């Protein structure tokens, strides 16, 4: 709110007070609205989650999915600030199976682990447990079984070659 220390005539002071009252009321309303609002950042809408998962799963489950499309969808998944749901991961792995791309399937597993960020220990075991049936069904290994959870090869940096 704007206040001024400048002296002014009586009428102006009165109007000022009126304005202040109005502003106070408006502020009060705003704060009360903020207190009751439903769509804050911390508010979590389960409906949105379902739609989000369904959108990706539907895309990966398409019959004639292309190698370009699946890569685009994976990039899209990486762009979101969220850990991919086991359902999405399973659908993606199945799509990889249909495209006969084993390497891409392993990369998807790596992406899911990478997206867990600092909370790998909390979320990654759960995701593994959920996707384990599909892994066994498709004949996939986890990245730990392949030994890709730790660096396997050391490569000279491109900047250091020349």
């Amino acid at each position: 709110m704007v206040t001024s220390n400048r002296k002014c005539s009586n009428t102006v002071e009165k109007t000022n007070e009126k304005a202040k009252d109005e502003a106070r009321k408006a502020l009060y309303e705003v704060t009360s609205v903020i207190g009751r609002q439903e769509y804050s950042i911390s508010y979590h809408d389960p409906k949105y989650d379902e739609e989000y998962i369904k959108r990706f799963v539907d895309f990966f489950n398409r019959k004639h999915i292309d190698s370009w499309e699946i890569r685009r969808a994976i990039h899209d998944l990486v762009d979101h600030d969220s850990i991919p749901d086991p359902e999405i991961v399973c659908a993606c792995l199945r799509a990889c199976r249909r495209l006969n791309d084993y390497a891409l399937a392993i990369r998807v597993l790596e992406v899911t682990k990478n997206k867990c960020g600092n909370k790998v220990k909390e979320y990654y075991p759960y995701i593994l447990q959920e996707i384990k049936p599909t892994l066994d069904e498709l004949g996939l290994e986890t990245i730990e079984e392949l030994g890709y959870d730790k660096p396997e090869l050391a490569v000279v940096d491109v900047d250091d070659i020349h």
Partner: protein
Amino acid sequence: MTLLTSVTVRFTRLFPKEFASSVNLIRFYSDDPPYIRIDRCPGREQIGFGFSGEKDYYDRTDLPCPAVRYKKETPEIKALHEKEKGDWHKLTLEEKKKLYRSSFRLTFAEIEAPTGRYKSYFGWAMVWYAVALWLYMLFYWCKNRGLTRPSLYYENRQAQLQRLIAMKYEPVHGLSSKWDYEKDDWK
């Protein structure tokens, strides 16, 4: 624009025709030479959009699927791809690893492995700090060296003035004309 095009022409002339993957016919002026896009990954099929639509390979965790496979399609890898079309249970662990390495150069763990570069960065930072400190000391020394000259001190300047008066310096209009030699004071 002419300079740019001449650069591209020279650049493209360095490469034989086989490396040109596509020729873009869109030009700024009608007499510009066509822009030739150089194929930096010859012998590989483009399998995705990748980073920018260019046929290019890179290792990035935020864009995990590059546009091409890392290795060329040798007969060995072709046979592996044929085998990949069957049941994945029948593939051995080595074959699976080969398949992965044919598509990608590095795993995520290898991309994110610490490189130790920070040591050189720290070292260079310290070098420039040292240079700055030496420069500071140099300037500090220069500044203080000026004050050590005797002619800059008040007493010495007073003595200089007294000597000028004793020498009757500028007696008509200048310094000594304002000095009363009988009273030994200013007029």
